[in-house]
């Protein structure tokens, strides 16, 4: 087995993960498609290694631009934008980066440990996919978000409804009809979620428009490694419980680690309400970043144990492996699981090195970049235009982006995460409740 885990496939996986994490909106599926000819040359074991490493490292790397610049690498990086970038603006950027890196790294070890503990009982774990269990999880998430988000509960409730309605826009397969499409073909496809997130969350964060003045990001960073390390260690319990949350959330089809990151974030807000702001922020970040790395591993379990992909990138992985004449079956569980486990542990250690010491150097560079907000916003606009071009809907994307920025600025002093979270969760929530209705009523 160890012979199969060639150095080269780990390196390829790590490089793909860096690409996926650093390029906002890219994601693992797009990355795999872009490098498809390369992936064709690898055998199934190596493909498992590459995919596992990519999925892990992308979560490490995605949090770096989120903390330093306020641009989320992925939808799972939104908490890192909110809490991590605020820490950076307060001069605690190195602590934020360290927290993301160590939380992610430690969480990966928990993920592997949970998996081997549960391996013999995975058929029980898959009862998580019962519709009533999914509906209950989403109901609990809704209650937690309403109670602990940074606004009054009535405002939080309004934001969850607003986010849910934004997610409803378009053709809804459960309802078998359009919602707020007004007969428009753009709206029929729904809102481009990542563009909405960039507009509502990222741009206001970067611009820091509190008094209609754009502030420079030139903030001196407090870089005391020993002190920061001690702080992270002191809050190690957060890593433990958020690993559990992330592991479970990794099973949610279509969302996996994205859901885990955001759910863990909200639980942290509930648990750390009365703590010192700096400690609370650190815990929120630890929770989100630990959770998303754990979920990036547990999302593989339905594929390895049942041969069922639950997200697009896994469907492509399945296809690549079948092309080689292999499949996922009872006979392959042991091999694929072991390979994935060893790969993710190696990749996460590399991810730790990439996202922690390297980012310390980047922090030094950013200390001298007065025009960073303008560069960042320009980069975001370029991303929006590119994504719109890819989707043959550039004008639509620009309009959605501008409207999202307007909403983000209008709500500049509010916690807007509930809007974004329920935009992302809307499909799954509706599907699970509708299925409960079909099954039991």
């Amino acid at each position, binding site marked *: 087995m160890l012979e199969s885990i060639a150095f*080269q496939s780990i390196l390829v996986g790590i490089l793909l993960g860096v690409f996926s994490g650093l390029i906002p909106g890219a994601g693992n599926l797009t990355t795999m498609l872009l490098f498809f000819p390369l992936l064709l040359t690898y055998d199934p074991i190596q493909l498992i290694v590459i995919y596992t490493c990519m999925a892990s490292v992308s979560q490490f790397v995605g949090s770096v631009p989120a903390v330093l610049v306020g641009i989320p690498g992925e939808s799972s990086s939104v908490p890192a934008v909110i809490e991590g970038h605020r820490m950076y603006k307060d001069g605690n950027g190195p602590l934020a980066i360290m927290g993301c890196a160590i939380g992610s790294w430690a969480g990966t070890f928990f993920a592997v440990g949970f998996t081997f503990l549960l391996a013999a009982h995975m058929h029980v774990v*898959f009862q998580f996919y019962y519709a009533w269990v999914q509906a209950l999880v989403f109901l609990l998430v809704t209650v937690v978000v309403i109670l602990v988000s940074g606004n009054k509960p009535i405002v939080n409730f309004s934001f969850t409804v607003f986010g849910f309605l934004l997610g409803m826009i378009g*053709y809804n397969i459960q309802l078998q009809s359009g919602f707020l499409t007004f007969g428009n073909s753009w709206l029929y496809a729904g809102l481009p979620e990542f563009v909405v997130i960039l507009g509502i969350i990222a741009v206001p964060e970067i611009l820091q428009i509190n008094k209609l003045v754009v502030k420079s990001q030139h903030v001196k960073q407090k870089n005391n490694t020993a002190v920061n390390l001690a702080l992270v260690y002191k809050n190690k319990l957060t890593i433990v419980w958020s690993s559990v949350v992330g592991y479970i959330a990794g099973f949610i089809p279509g969302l996996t680690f994205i859901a885990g990151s955001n759910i863990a974030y909200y639980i942290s807000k509930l648990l750390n309400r009365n703590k010192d702001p700096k400690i609370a922020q650190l815990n929120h970040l630890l929770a989100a970043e630990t959770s998303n790395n754990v979920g990036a591993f547990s999302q593989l379990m339905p594929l390895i144990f*049942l041969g*069922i992909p639950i997200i697009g990138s896994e*469907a492509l992985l399945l*296809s690549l492996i079948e092309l080689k*004449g292999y499949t996922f079956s009872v006979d392959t569980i042991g091999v694929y699981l072991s390979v994935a486990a060893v790969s993710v542990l190696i990749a996460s250690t590399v991810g730790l090195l990439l996202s922690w010491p390297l980012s310390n150097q980047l922090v030094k560079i950013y200390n001298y970049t007065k025009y960073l907000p303008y560069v960042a916003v320009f980069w975001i606009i370029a991303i929006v235009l590119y994504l719109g071009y890819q*989707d043959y809907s550039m004008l639509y994307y620009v309009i959605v982006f501008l409207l999202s920025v307007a909403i983000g600025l209008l709500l500049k002093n509010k916690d807007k995460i509930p809007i974004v979270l329920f935009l992302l969760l809307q499909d799954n929530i509706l599907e699970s409740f509708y299925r409960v209705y079909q099954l039991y009523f």
Partner: protein
Amino acid sequence: MKLTSLATILALVLPTIAVAEELNILNTGSETGSLAQETIALTQDFTALGYTVNFENPGNHCLAIERAKKISEPLIMPWASDYEAGGRAGTDCVTYEFKAENVIRYNRTSLQLCTVNSNVDDFNTKSGLIGITPAWPIQERAVGVINKHFNTEHRAIQYNGSGDLKTALFNGEVSYAILSPKHAANVVEIGGHCFYSLGNALPNMPSLPELVNNEDSRYLYLGWDIVFLALHMTAEQFEIVRKQFADIHNNPTSAMYTYTAGNTLLETDWAVTGDQAVEKFEQSVDALK
């Protein structure tokens, strides 16, 4: 050696990407279902042929057709008669009109009834939950016919795609599932079994429509006629792609050959002309409406 190969591949691929012919492949099914896997396989095979392939996977047939309308470059996409039937009957979201000269492949797929934790005797006598995938109205109608014939009260439960449905089958949320041959084969691999064909009889699997054998049995011919369409191409491009498409199916090293298990899981009729494909497709749509 591998590093050298990697560098060589990159050196060859990178400039190639800049000049390779572009091709869009659009999955009109669910994100991880049969059509997704089939179009992913095609993406792999056409990429191996040197095309720069842009794979689109919107997640359902409604969004896919909206996407198709926006694409003006060479495009390959499947379209299924059950989606069309639902659209024309007003029970589904969309219809799509195509021409005979755009048909690059025609095939018929019959679905199968499968179970993991139950058996055919219980299916015939007791009531349970049957998982179905889009197009739901057509499959729900078939469940009604089954209940009428066997005097049962099975209920149809909707799932967005075969991936979700298989999970529900494995964890026992539903007792039975209506699946395409590819997914039915997966279920058998994991320890389940399929006991009725919703088309012609297969070895060790009787045909449910033939068993029922009454005026309603036509609604039990569940499955679909699929046409793969090649759009926005010149006549020359079309002929090249059509030949490549057929070669892919018959090439033992191709992803499509693997997906179809050597063409055993797909009833592809290469002798069918475009006009004949349209005629058969329309017959299937009429039967399913």
